[in-house]
């Protein structure tokens, strides 16, 4: 048997050191989820959520039909003991709302279609996926797990049970391949995995297997996290892998995870101590418009939306302050941004930068 064949057939159980000859799970990169360990938090570590909100990188708190629920979402250092995780994402309710018609709320992760072509969805060879994660909640009971595919037209519903309150538990869920509908090979949103935390009665389905429905759904007996203020639901160690077997979590370095997140979002931010983040160099086309070339950390998924915080400046013959972004000429490779500033001089060169204030930042958002 060749060395290559050996490697192809070997799966190494890292937790026990046992090496078994099986084709699954595969070696190499296994986890399709970016930031499954909740370690990257470019936007911040605490969020008041009352509408769709990206929180920790790649993790969206998502609403359906204007649900009235509100919560605080935080990055926490509370993790399962001995699991090797340093961070978790925590949702804590800040109001009480009864399940209502078709209103929903949950935690969502989504993928580009071009990253999931190996699943062969829409063919008889469609691959299974296995989702594993650690969860801890103040409320025991049944929770749904929804996977939406093919541009929000296909759904499969699964469930898991929180057995003990306020205790970390690891869950594993098999997601059968969808043989009926494919995934477009592009950079658009394709598969979404949603952990519902609040679901109205009109969106409760007992259907098993893939079916045609693009709505935000959950399963019978879905826990309503929002039946009390201060209820909590926490998650970390999220791994989605091809095949029918859950392997141990694939820990990746912070730098590797950060770079992967930056395809979707990055922030140049000021910080006390090491201060001023450069945004880009350029020149004044008139007294109050400064054009800056902005190199990105990585190529982005699409042309990004830009936004700024407060206390940004241009270093030129003086320090005119930046008040707004006047125009965005960026694409997915790099950006040219036209800032509106206080008065300077046409033709002068300079560079835009943040201050060392925590509110001083420049964001680029190409999320799904």
């Amino acid at each position, binding site marked *: 048997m060749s060395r290559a064949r050996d490697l192809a057939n070997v799966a190494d159980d890292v937790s026990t050191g046992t090496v078994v000859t099986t084709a699954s799970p595969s070696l190499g990169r296994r986890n399709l989820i970016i930031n499954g360990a909740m370690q990257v938090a470019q936007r911040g570590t605490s969020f008041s959520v009352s*509408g*769709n909100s990206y929180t920790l990188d790649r993790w969206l708190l*998502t*609403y*359906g*039909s*204007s649900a009235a629920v509100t919560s605080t979402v935080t990055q926490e250092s509370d993790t399962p003991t001995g699991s090797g995780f340093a961070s978790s994402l925590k949702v804590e309710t800040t109001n009480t709302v009864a399940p209502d018609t078709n209103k929903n709320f949950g935690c969502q992760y989504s993928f580009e279609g071009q990253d999931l072509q190996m699943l062969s969805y829409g063919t008889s060879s469609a691959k299974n996926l296995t989702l594993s994660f650690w969860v801890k909640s103040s409320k025991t009971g049944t929770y749904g797990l929804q996977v939406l595919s093919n541009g*929000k037209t296909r759904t499969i519903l699964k469930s898991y049970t929180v057995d003990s309150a306020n205790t970390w538990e690891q869950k594993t869920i098999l997601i059968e391949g969808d043989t009926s509908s494919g995934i477009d090979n592009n*950079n*658009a949103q394709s598969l979404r995995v949603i952990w519902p935390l609040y679901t109205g009665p009109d969106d409760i389905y007992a259907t098993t297997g893939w079916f045609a429905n693009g709505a*935000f759904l959950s399963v019978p007996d879905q826990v309503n996290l929002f039946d009390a203020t201060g209820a909590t639901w926490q998650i970390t160690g999220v791994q989605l892998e091809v095949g029918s077997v859950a392997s141990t979590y694939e820990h990746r370095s912070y730098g590797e995870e950060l770079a992967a997140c930056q395809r979707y979002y990055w922030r140049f931010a000021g910080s006390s101590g090491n201060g001023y983040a450069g945004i880009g160099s350029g020149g004044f*086309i008139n007294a109050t*418009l400064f054009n800056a070339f902005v190199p990105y950390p990585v190529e982005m*998924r*699409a*042309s*990004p*939306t*830009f*936004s*700024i915080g407060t206390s940004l400046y241009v270093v030129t013959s003086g320090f005119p302050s930046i008040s*707004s*972004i*006047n*125009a*965005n*000429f*960026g*694409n997915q490779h790099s950006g040219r*941004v*036209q800032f509106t500033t206080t008065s300077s001089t046409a033709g002068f060169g300079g560079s835009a930068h943040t201050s060392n204030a925590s509110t001083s930042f420049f964001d680029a*958002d*190409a*999320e*799904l």
Partner: protein
Amino acid sequence: MEQMNITSAQYSVDNVTGNNVSIQATIDGVQMSVPLDPANRHYAEIMRQVEAGELVIQDADS
């Protein structure tokens, strides 16, 4: 899923060509500069709301 709350939208122009290059929008209470890229989620939602008659993009300041 929930739609974005877009309270204003106005085109920005290239000072050299005079062409529209992006949209200044207030989305969920945040001032954003949105590129004219259908793959950008903010632009896609702006255009969806325009087509639904829920939003009008103002012309750029002359």
